[in-house]
């Protein structure tokens, strides 16, 4: 049977349509759903879209930014107030994929994709989800742990802007340049107070089935100045709690071997 396309004016209606139809998938930029359809995923029988402008909105004027789920990576790169997110946005796909792929969709992209989400995880973002019961905010960590079971529609993500350009760092390690799948992806948010790190967040991609925080490394940084000793300690702790797997891009062994090296390089500002 051909696929049915349903377009709604509001995200509420779209969320309701999604929860009432097991064969329904929400179409964001198309990079996930259209590929699945092209490759013969017949479980998808309905495509749900929403023309709700709220999904496309960027609110970045203040210290807390909110980005609609339908905002593309190209739009993020074009937004000066989102400079801290330019590196992660630029690391996604080639230019065409960045014109299509959305922040919301990236939350659902499984390994070796989903790099932007690594940045959001380090930024302690919250995810606004619309379900039949109404809209609610979920911490991104919690969201990722339950994303396969998520009912409803992601409306937006929001996070605090880093205090300085230096406080947020991102790096995606790829075999292919400039566009490649993630071998590992690293993001670090290092707020400082009187020269010491307070509230360190290190997030990793491709080091577990879903993006995760390197909490041991965070602890090694917490309350310390970002000096060589601290960086070494964080790098040494980078693998703790991770469970990388083999895939076509690299093995679990390799990922474990290099995550500390790259975390050290990221934290010390080395190429």
């Amino acid at each position, binding site marked *: 049977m051909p696929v049915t396309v349903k377009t709604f004016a509001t995200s509420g209606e779209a969320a309701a349509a999604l929860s009432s139809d097991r064969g329904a998938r929400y179409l964001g930029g198309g990079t996930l759903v259209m590929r699945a359809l092209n490759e013969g995923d017949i479980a998808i029988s309905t495509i749900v879209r929403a023309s709700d402008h709220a999904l496309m909105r960027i609110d970045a004027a203040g210290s807390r930014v909110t980005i609609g789920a339908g905002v593309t990576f190209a739009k993020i790169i074009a937004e000066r107030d989102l400079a801290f997110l330019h590196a992660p946005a630029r690391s996604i796909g080639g230019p065409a994929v960045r014109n299509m792929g959305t922040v919301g969709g990236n939350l659902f992209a499984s390994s*070796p*994709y989903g790099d932007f989400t690594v940045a959001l995880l380090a930024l302690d973002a919250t995810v606004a989800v619309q379900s039949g019961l109404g809209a609610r905010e979920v911490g991104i960590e919690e969201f990722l742990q339950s994303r396969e079971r998520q009912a409803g529609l992601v409306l937006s993500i929001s996070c605090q802007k880093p205090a300085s350009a230096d406080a947020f760092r991102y790096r995606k390690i790829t*075999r*292919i*340049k*400039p*566009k*490649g*799948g993630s071998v590992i992806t690293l993001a670090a948010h290092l707020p400082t107070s009187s020269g010491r790190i307070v509230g360190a967040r290190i997030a990793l991609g491709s080091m577990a089935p879903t993006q995760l925080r390197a909490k041991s490394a965070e602890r090694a940084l917490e309350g310390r100045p970002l000096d060589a000793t601290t960086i070494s300690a964080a790098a040494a702790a980078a693998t703790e709690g991770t469970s990388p797997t*083999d*895939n*076509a*891009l*690299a*093995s679990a*062994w*390799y990922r474990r*071997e*290099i995550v500390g*090296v*790259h975390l050290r390089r990221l934290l010390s500002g080395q190429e």
Partner: protein
Amino acid sequence: MTKHRGRGIASINYPIGMNLGGDPSQALVHSNPSGKFTVSLSSIDLGQGMKSVTRQICAETLGVPVEDVYVDTADSDTGPHCMGSFASRGTHRVGNAVMAAAKEARGVMMEAAAEELEVNAADLETDGRGNIQVKGAPHRSISTKDVAIAAQFRQGKTISGRGIFLVPLSDVDPETGEMSPATCYAHACLVAEVEVDDETGEVAMVRMDSAYELGRALNPRLVEQQLVGGAWMGVSHALYETTEPYYPDSSHGPRDFVEYLMPGPGDICPHDIAVLERPAADGPFGAKGPGEMCANPALPAVANAIFNAVGVRIDELPITPEKVLRAIKAQGGARSQPRR
């Protein structure tokens, strides 16, 4: 220091064609009434330039401008038999067949011109610009167009030619492997320079210098396409490509262009190429085939450069960062070899 540079070389030869089954190709050439020529082939252009190189061979042999020749490929009703586009046989086998067909067509064209000019065909030559003239008396000339009209409408001649090039079957001696697998060989030597990161095992290409001997570069721009793209593929084979990353374990096979690794436009390096031409006795204008062999030297040259940079030998392809890193660790660190 974490990054180390090294250089490595490899030199190779490569057989042109493969005639263990007999290796024929055919071509037909004919003129239309305006003196423009069509080459009919069943040979395939998969990007290597079959249409273009046979076009030049035909034009040169006929003695007409290349613009007067059009090559039609790969129609089983109109194109005569060809084994196919593989084994570096295009330029050599198909080129020879086209040359033979063009020679026959040229013979008829010169006879027809001789009749029009009332001279002996042996006294005529082509000027390469679409005219046939009496040797030593270029004012006595006739255009190929007028010859074609005359042949068609007055003389009742068909300006056409058939060509086949067959390298006959070579039997193989089962006990010794004695055989004649090919009639000529192309040659190459490539120097690769790499930079190896000893903490991650990553290998970056720095530059390549190479020399390829190809019999004759029938079209240097087409040769350049093959050699540049071929060396890229060689590097890709050396460092990236596999459908089974954990071979012989068959798991985790790539399914798309993110998982199947090939160097991107940001991974390429300068490549300086020299082409040598030692004509093959049986090649069309001496030409051999550059298409396949151009990839081969890059693989070992890269592997040897990695050894030169960090002192480890990776004997399993592709040479992934993982393999390099494991070897460096097993060795107790990078050991740069004498700088070359």
